């Protein structure tokens, strides 16, 4: 009996390798985002969801590329990933010194991040899900009103971007989600939906038919500029772009 149990256990280990990604359950609810849901003042509604506790690492992305060779840097179509895609790896299927296995993978396009999450039966988080998860600190679900919390995040922005990235597994917030602030920028599913006008005076312009509906969004909570910088960064990117510090984690609907 014990032997059979051990065999089953061994089988489970083989089917679910130790590296299987962990997801934390987040309750969601009404969330006052820096981006009002209606472009004016409405709070966002975040449905319960699960978020990957760690960023996707170089080792994990390498395993993905090996099973999905269309995402090798020497195979990928340029319309899905730009020329810098994974160029810090030694070769198309070797990480090397510039890309340690436990460092978060960066220089990945939004398309590549989407494809990776799909391989994990997951998706990228929405902006609201990401912002909601990132509002927490180690003890509070919403630490955003705390000036010390904001200072801490802004401190990360002053770290030189040439410094080597730390490995994943840093500070966890109250949900058990690691490194959501302070390690890399992160792709979100709707990165191209944030649509912040570069000049909010444009919004009343009747000739501005570029955007249908309520027009470009206006941003709230101007004091929370650590988060606003994230939005500015995401809004500036195209889906095939890669950058030195843009990584990702995946999410699942509950």
């Amino acid at each position, binding site marked *: 009996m014990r032997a059979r149990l051990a065999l089953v256990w061994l089988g489970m280990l083989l089917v679910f390798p130790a590296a299987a990604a962990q997801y934390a359950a987040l309750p969601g609810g009404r969330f006052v985002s820096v981006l009002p*849901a*209606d*472009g004016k003042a*409405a709070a966002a*509604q975040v449905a319960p969801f699960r978020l990957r506790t760690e960023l996707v690492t170089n080792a994990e992305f390498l395993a993905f590329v090996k099973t999905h060779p269309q995402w090798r840097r020497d195979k990928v*179509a*340029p*319309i*899905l990933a730009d020329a810098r895609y994974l160029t810090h790896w030694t070769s198309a299927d070797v990480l090397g010194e510039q890309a340690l296995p436990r460092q978060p993978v960066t220089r990945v396009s*939004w*398309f590549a991040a*989407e494809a990776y999450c*799909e391989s994990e039966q997951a*998706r990228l988080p929405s902006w609201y899900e990401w912002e909601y998860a990132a509002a927490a600190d180690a003890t509070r679900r919403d630490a955003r009103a705390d000036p010390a919390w904001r200072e801490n995040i802004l401190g990360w922005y002053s770290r030189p971007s040439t410094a080597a990235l730390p490995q994943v597994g840093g500070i966890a917030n109250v949900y058990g989600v690691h490194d959501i602030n302070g390690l890399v920028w992160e792709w979100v*599913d*709707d990165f*191209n*939906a*944030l*649509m912040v006008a570069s000049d909010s005076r444009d919004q009343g312009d009747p000739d501005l*038919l*570029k*955007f*249908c*509906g*309520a*027009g*470009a*969004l206006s941003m709230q909570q101007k004091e929370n500029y650590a988060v606003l910088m994230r939005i500015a960064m995401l809004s500036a990117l*195209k*889906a*095939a772009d890669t950058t030195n510090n843009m990584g990702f984690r995946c999410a699942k609907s509950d």
Partner: protein
Amino acid sequence: MKRLCLLVLGLLLAAGLRAATPLPGDSVYNLPLRLTTQEGQQQMLSARRGRPQLVTMFYTSCQMVCPLIIDSMRLTRNALDPAVRSRIDLLAVSFDPARDDVATLRSYADRRRLDPRIWTLARAEPAQVRRLSGVLGLQYRQLPDGEFNHSSELILLDAEGRIAARTTVIGRLDPSFVKAVDALAAGP
């Protein structure tokens, strides 16, 4: 007769060559994307390879700019030289797959008198819609009331699926865009 045989053989060879040629890296047809048309037919986006396309994204319940987007597609096509008009196809993909099912797309096409030989209205699964907007460089966002904020553009794809021209002019003709479509559809 012999000449006809040669012609047929030549055409077959040309078709075979086209199928065998790899897609250019900057073609939107590199995106594996399954569309369902207003006729209920499943079609890969890449199946549209071989003819230039005028492409846009819209949704049928949109009251503001979307009717103008469809008007602008029609205006642009009508402004072409009649000889080249038949060489391009029109494709409009919905931002709103939840509400734009096949029947809704079909009745919209009927109401707006969009000839199915020229127009394809299509839907795709939500994650795929976001990817299509990514390759086309369009933005959209659903609002709490179910409406969408979205960019309104017409995009010209060449026969290989490369973006050849685009315009944000909606509601009236953009002469330089018409010129680009005309030049591409007329061929070398």
